[in-house]
């Protein structure tokens, strides 16, 4: 008989292989993908089982039901598949003896086995498939029961303690990974909730503030006097500041979650830079800073809005950190392959220590804090994410007391394929509609 040939050693090998295969599945399966199906295959194939099902606990209905079936490649048993899927639905305390293996494993939370009856209609299916006994493996995450893996074996003799022990440790391993993944999903869900909160709960009221303000300022709801107009201007400026801040927070959260999408279209970066400089001119004048622009026309492929935001952030920063009578210069050149954008200032400069952390989120230099220069330390981390998303680079040259130059290099043909995947830097490219 072939059973005699299966020595203790090959048995132990089977268990070791099964454990390795399950570990591999746990390590290689992407987050959010189904773990159970590959685990069933890993166990079934290595432990030479013929048929198996995963009975998931449906908390709402309070029943165990199987929607996943695994069977050995040489077994053709559609009737058995159907029975497992459709007929074997029961509660964890079902008194029906045909479910005693399941309910026993469930209530004891232990790996259990039982011979499979060869009598009656179910027995006929077992006989046809050559099934002799079955093993039930509870899968739990912490204290919570998730379900039961139940496999059928063609071997006549009962499973040895060694095998049951191996299955216990495999079940523990699965439980740990499932628990960790549930925690990750929970964190993901909270992140999404945060998104919804920031997007909806902050942006909707801003819509009303900015919208009604506009109606009043345009005197569509009656005349206003000069002082009222000036005060409304203050409200407007601050509402827009809030709007920018909400936009920045959302941007960073999107980069973090890997859901930020960059558009891809053709545009003139020189024009984009020119617009950003024009928009910054009133601020520069107010602060007594000379703003110079020396931008060539450079056609490139990318997200023009985001690159506008990049130039805007760099120029705003330069103005903020440059004292009166200083100058900020924006320079743009292209060589057909690469666009080089430089934003230089004659400001206070950045120490090499600060330079190392400058692109970190919420990082503020000591000088920025001391001089109470407004900001929350998101601008440059946003710049870095935009540049990365375009497959470019950003570098800084600075001398304390003399000034700073930010140099951005961008491929004009767009980001190379494979760049900007969520795994890399959390930015994706999408085709422009």
């Amino acid at each position: 008989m072939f059973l005699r040939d299966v020595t203790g050693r090959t048995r132990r090998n089977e268990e070791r292989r099964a454990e390795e295969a399950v570990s591999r599945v746990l390590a290689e399966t992407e987050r959010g993908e189904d773990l159970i199906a590959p685990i069933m295959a890993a166990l079934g194939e290595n432990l030479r089982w013929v048929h198996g099902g995963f009975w998931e606990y449906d908390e709402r209905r309070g029943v165990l039901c199987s929607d996943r079936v695994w069977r050995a490649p040489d077994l053709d048993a559609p009737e058995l598949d159907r029975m497992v899927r459709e007929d074997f639905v029961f509660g964890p305390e079902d008194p029906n003896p045909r479910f005693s293996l399941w309910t026993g494993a469930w209530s004891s939370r232990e790996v259990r086995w039982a011979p499979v009856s060869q009598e009656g209609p179910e027995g006929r299916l077992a006989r046809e498939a050559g099934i002799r006994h079955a093993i039930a493996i509870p899968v739990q995450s912490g204290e919570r029961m998730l379900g039961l893996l139940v496999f059928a074996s063609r071997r006549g003799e009962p499973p040895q303690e060694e095998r049951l022990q191996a299955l216990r440790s495999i079940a523990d391993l699965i439980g740990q990974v499932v628990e960790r993944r549930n925690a990750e999903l929970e964190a993901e869900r909270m992140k999404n909730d945060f998104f919804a909160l920031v997007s909806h709960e902050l942006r909707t009221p801003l819509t009303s503030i900015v919208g009604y303000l506009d109606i009043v300022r345009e005197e569509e709801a009656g005349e206003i006097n000069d002082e009222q107009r000036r005060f409304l201007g203050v409200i407007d400026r601050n509402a827009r500041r809030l709007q920018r801040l909400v936009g920045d927070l959302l941007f960073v959260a999107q980069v973090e979650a890997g859901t930020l999408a960059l558009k891809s279209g053709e545009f003139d970066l020189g024009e984009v830079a020119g617009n950003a400089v024009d928009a910054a001119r009133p601020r520069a004048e107010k602060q007594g800073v000379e703003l110079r622009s020396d931008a060539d026309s450079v056609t490139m492929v990318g997200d023009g809005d985001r690159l506008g935001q990049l130039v805007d952030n760099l120029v705003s920063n330069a103005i903020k950190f440059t004292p009166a009578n200083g100058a900020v210069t924006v320079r743009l050149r292209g060589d057909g392959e690469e666009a080089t954008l430089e934003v230089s200032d004659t400001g206070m400069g950045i120490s090499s220590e600060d330079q190392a952390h400058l692109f970190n989120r919420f990082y503020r230099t000591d000088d920025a804090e001391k001089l109470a220069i407004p900001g929350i330390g998101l601008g440059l981390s946003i710049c870095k994410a935009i540049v990365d998303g375009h497959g470019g680079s950003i570098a800084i040259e600075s001398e304390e007391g003399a000034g700073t130059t930010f140099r951005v290099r961008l491929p004009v043909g767009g980001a190379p394929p494979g760049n900007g995947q969520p795994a890399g830097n959390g930015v994706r490219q999408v085709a422009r509609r």
Partner: protein
Amino acid sequence: MSEIGERPLVLVADDDEDVRELIAFRLRRAGCEVITVADGESALQAARESTPVLVVLDVMMPKLTGVEVTRALREDDPTREIAIILLTASVEEEDMQRGFEAGADEYLRKPFAPRELGEVVEALIRDRTSARSRRA
């Protein structure tokens, strides 16, 4: 939006009353006749009953989302040609693509500039009314 002719009918659906009234105020000023509703189901019903030239739909609305209303309007012959603007507070590119796939003509993100809304509305109405008069 001075060029919009003979008070075109516009439906505005948003569960935020302030935003709804803001849009309605703007559109009435621009010469439109405006109906307002606060949820997706009422929007669908109102659109079927009165066949406006244009509907402005918030995406996140109770009962039916703006995207679901868009899809339903595009499925029925009498409402198929209505111009649809979706409004959303979401910044996700995918949400925008879903909106266009459902059949929206334009998509505006909150907070939108009042001028931006005005321009989009004007262009869509002009487009639809000239198409209607051509058919007539």
